[in-house]
C-alpha cells in the first residue's frame, strides 16, 4: 500500500563515530492504513548505494531510543501508528560522501486480522530512493 511513500523524501542523517565508522539514518512509513504491532516489523533487502546491509547492522528508533532491529520481534504491546514514520539506522558504514545516496528498503508488517491458515499475513513494499546527505552531522 502506498509504495511511493515508503522512504520519506528528506535528508539522510549522518552519525560519525570517533572509531571512524559512520551510520546513516532515514525514515520509513508504515505501508498500511492502520496501526500494526511493532513486533511484526519486517525489514529486508536493505541496501545503501547498492551494497546489501545485513539485519545486524540495523537499528530502529522506538519511543525515542535506538533498538537493534533484531530485538524488535521480542517487543510486546508496542504499535506502529499509521501516521508515525519509523527512523531506521544503518551502522558500520565506511565514509559517506557529500551528495545523494541511494537507499533501498523492503518494509513490512504483520497484519493480524488477516489470517491465512494459522499465520497472519505479512505485507511488504519495496522502494529505492536517492536521499541527499545532511550537511549536519551528529557524533
Amino acid at each position: 500500500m502506498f509504495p511511493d511513500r515508503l522512504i520519506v523524501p528528506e535528508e539522510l542523517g549522518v552519525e560519525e563515530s570517533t572509531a571512524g565508522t559512520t551510520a546513516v539514518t532515514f525514515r520509513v512509513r508504515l505501508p498500511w492504513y492502520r496501526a500494526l504491532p511493532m513486533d511484526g516489523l519486517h525489514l529486508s533487502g536493505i541496501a545503501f548505494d547498492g551494497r546489501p546491509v545485513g539485519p545486524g547492522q540495523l537499528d530502529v528508533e522506538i519511543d525515542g531510543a535506538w533498538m537493534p532491529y533484531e530485538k524488535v520481534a521480542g517487543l510486546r504491546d508496542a504499535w506502529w501508528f499509521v501516521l508515525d514514520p519509523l527512523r531506521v539506522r544503518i551502522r558500520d558504514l565506511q565514509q559517506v560522501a557529500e551528495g545523494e545516496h541511494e537507499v533501498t528498503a523492503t518494509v513490512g508488517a504483520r497484519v493480524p486480522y488477516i489470517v491465512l491458515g494459522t499465520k497472519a499475513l505479512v505485507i511488504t513494499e519495496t522502494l529505492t530512493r536517492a536521499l541527499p546527505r545532511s550537511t549536519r552531522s551528529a557524533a
Partner: protein
Amino acid sequence: MSRQLPKLGVTAYSFTPQYHGLELSFEDVVRRIGDLGIGPGLEIVGFQSIKGFPVIPDGFARQFRGLVDEYGLEPSCLAVNADLGLLPDRLLSPQEMADYLAPQVRAAAELGFPTVRLQKPASPEAVELLLPVAEKAQVKMGFEIHAPDSVHSDWVMALRELYARLDSPYLGFIPDFGSSTRRVSPSVWEEYRRRGVPQEALDTLNARWNEIHGSDQRPSESELMGEFSELANSLGLGSFAHPLAMFCAGIHGHQDPQDWAEIGPQIIHVHSKFFAFDKDGDEPAIPLGDLLKVLVDVGYTGYLSSEWEGWHWDPSPDAAEMVRRHHELSRGILASL
C-alpha cells in the same frame, strides 16, 4: 405517510490516501465531511484514527464529540479489529479475543458510537463471551460480510445459528456492498493498462472473473486468491500480479444482491462500497439500485456508510468529491424507490 429510508453517511476510511499522505489530519477529515455535508453518519476505524487505540487519549472524546456536534454529524459505527494473529507465534483463543475486543467495544461507548464493526476472525465463541460487555455498554456488534464472502459463507452461517440461539438486539451484520458486485471495476483495468499491463492479460483475468460470476461456483477466499494469483503470475505480471489477484479475488464479490434480504432484520449498519464512476455518474461495478431496493424492502433505516475504495489502484481523486458524488447517486436512487 412516506416510508422511512436509510440515512447517508461516510467512513473516514475513504480518506485514507490523504490521511496516510499527511495531507489531512483526522480533525481535517471530520471537518471536510462536515463542511461538504457528506454525513450525517460518521464511521471511523479505531486503529487508524486514534493513536493508542483502544485507549482513548485524554481530551480526545471531548474534542471528537465537539466536532461532531459542531457539524451536526452522527457517530454511526466504530470499526474495530479482531486481531486474531496479534501474537507472533500463535493465534488468540476465543477468550483472549473477547478480552482483546472488550476495550474496543467500551471505546465505542465512550465516543458515542452505537455500533462496532467486527470482522470474520472474531469467532462465534468469542462473540458469545463478549456479548455481556456489549450489552452493558449498549453497543451493537455487527460482523462485516466482505467480499468474497456472502450470507452463505460457512462462518456467516455459523453466526446466523448463534444469533438465532442468543436472540440479542446487540448482535447483527454489516453488509459490505463489495460482496455483491456485477463486474470488476473498469477503473482497475484502466489503471493497470496505464501502467503498461498488456490488454490481453487484463482480458484473461476479467474473463475468469466473469466466468465465476456467471456460474454456480462460489470458491472460498483462499481458493479464489490462489487461483487468481496463479493466473496472474502465469501471465507474467510480476509485481502487478499480487494486487491484481487481490482486487479480483478479495474486493469484487459474487453474491446476488437479493440474498441480503435473508439477513434483513439483522442488518445494523452498511458499508456502501464504491470504486469509481462512469461518464453518466453511475458506479459500474456496484448494482447500487438493486442493493438499496433490497435494503428498503426489508425495512432497513440505518446508515449507508459510503466507503470509497478505488484508491487502492488510483489514489489521485479527491476522496470528499468521490463521496459527494456517491451521495448524489444514492440520494437519487433512494428518492426513486
